[in-house]
């Protein structure tokens, strides 16, 4: 009885999800293994092998992996460290947390305005360089664009992760720490033995959101460099967007399906890690 009710309750969410995301995605799945205009023929993994020989795709893949590999760990561990710092502050911590969260709300158009002011042709960085007698550059169109994108990501999402970590750390009972201090444990040991195991599930949830946000960063890259930016920030999303505009549906579908496979595999690994940590905690 209870179970049937649940389906009714979830019906709007399920139906909307099926209609707008899942079923259309199955169509994409079919596109990714077939070829031809009008009548499509099954071609197996041919689209995939072609995709993985495409130079632009490999560049985009490399950049996206690099971006994820640098941006995500920094934002997660930075946020974790800062939330521990903020815990120790007697006053002003709330204001700081709110200030750090605020960039998430700022429209991208406005953020890009700020980037132009800093790294643009007539920007602040070039002004400083000119005073030092150096020649400036249009940084947004050089390989420095990669780091600008990283800074934008950190600027935008650091506060969001701090908010999530902070409350969880605050909920760890104080006596745990007092007891550890009394037994003479060092700060590092306290973090490893008390804080880290307790916040690990939160960490995974943050990781999930951070990965989601990595893919959202395309807007920034797009508004900075258009469809064909500097090759250091040519991301998978550029590749997909350009395929979409060329009406190359099967290329785009192939990318999406590959992406889904990678995310699924990662999610599975994450789920196993979570189960593992849960079973360890229960011991």
């Amino acid at each position, binding site marked *: 009885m209870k179970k049937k009710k649940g389906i009714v309750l979830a019906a709007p969410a*399920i139906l909307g999800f099926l209609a707008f995301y899942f079923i*259309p995605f199955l169509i994409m799945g079919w596109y990714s293994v077939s070829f031809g205009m009008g009548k499509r023929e099954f071609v197996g993994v041919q689209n995939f092998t072609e995709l993985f020989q495409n130079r632009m795709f490999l560049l985009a893949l490399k950049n996206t992996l690099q971006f994820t590999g640098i941006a995500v760990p920094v934002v997660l561990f930075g946020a974790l460290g800062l939330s521990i710092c903020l815990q120790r502050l007697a006053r002003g911590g709330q204001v700081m947390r*709110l200030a750090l969260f605020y960039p998430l709300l700022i429209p991208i158009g406005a953020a890009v305005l700020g980037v132009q002011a800093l790294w643009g042709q007539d920007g602040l960085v070039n002004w400083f360089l000119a005073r030092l007698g150096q020649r400036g550059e249009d940084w947004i169109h050089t390989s420095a664009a990669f780091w600008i994108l990283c800074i934008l990501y950190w600027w935008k999402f650091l506060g969001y992760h701090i908010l999530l970590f902070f409350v969880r750390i605050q909920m760890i009972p104080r006596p745990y720490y007092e007891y550890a201090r009394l037994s003479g444990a060092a700060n590092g040991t306290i973090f490893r033995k008390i804080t880290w195991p307790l916040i690990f599930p939160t960490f995974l949830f943050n990781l999930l959101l951070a990965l989601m946000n990595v893919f959202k960063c395309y807007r920034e890259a797009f508004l900075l460099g258009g469809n064909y930016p500097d090759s250091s920030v040519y991301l998978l999303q550029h590749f997909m967007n350009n395929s979409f505009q060329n009406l190359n549906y099967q290329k785009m579908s192939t990318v999406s399906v590959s992406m889904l496979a990678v995310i699924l595999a990662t999610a599975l690994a994450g789920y196993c890690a979570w189960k593992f940590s849960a079973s360890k905690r229960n011991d």
Partner: protein
Amino acid sequence: MRAKKREYLLPGILSAAVLVPVFYMAACSFAGDESPGFSLMGYYTVLFSEPGYLLRFWRSLAMCGVIAAGQSLTGCMGGAAIAKYRFAGSKVLAICMAVFMILPVQATLLPNYIFLDRLHLLNSWWALILPGIFAPFGTVWMAFAFRAIPGEVSEAAEMDGAGMLSHVFHILIPAARPAVITLFVLSFVESWNMVEQPVTFLKGVRQYPMSVFLASIDIDRLSVQAVCGILCLAPVTFLFFYYQQELLDGIGESIWS
């Protein structure tokens, strides 16, 4: 435990630094286009002389309100179903939604496009509203939030004869109020800032909501651009200050216990 001065340094500097672009934009909005110096021309142009800007602003605001409210509603219902009424396949559904949540907008643009084309909804704002309302993010978010509410609360409600709807709307949602409000704010911000969907689903600049429009304003008219930026910032800033307490304890408190 009294904090030392040194400990304020890093967080303090960082939280001041992240706000610099906002102050910069505010400063730009008072700049004159022709002559340097203080000027209110930007505000005059946007607010009074050209009604196009404000009209677009109100229409975008209404659209994002609808998306955020719809997303919160479907998110609460779906999340409650997954967290509290474990039906057959609810776990698979949750994982499926979480995976689709991570996928970039580009991956779901084509599926959305195909479906909206069938429904003849392309080139109207419904093409932005419907996928926004049914985004899997809300359900995943609320499922996490509701899971943290102790089972005894639901059992007590059931003993008192509360039906399913009153259980969800009178017990669960008030108990997870900060998380619901945070979801509302996040999905409002998300739709307020969307770029890819309007560019793909709509034809013509006239239809574009505020977010895309902001990016397409002439760079030469810096003050107009900055004023539009501030106009864009106004609603989210209002939400931010109005719900600051919920945001502070909201995202975390009810989710992890």
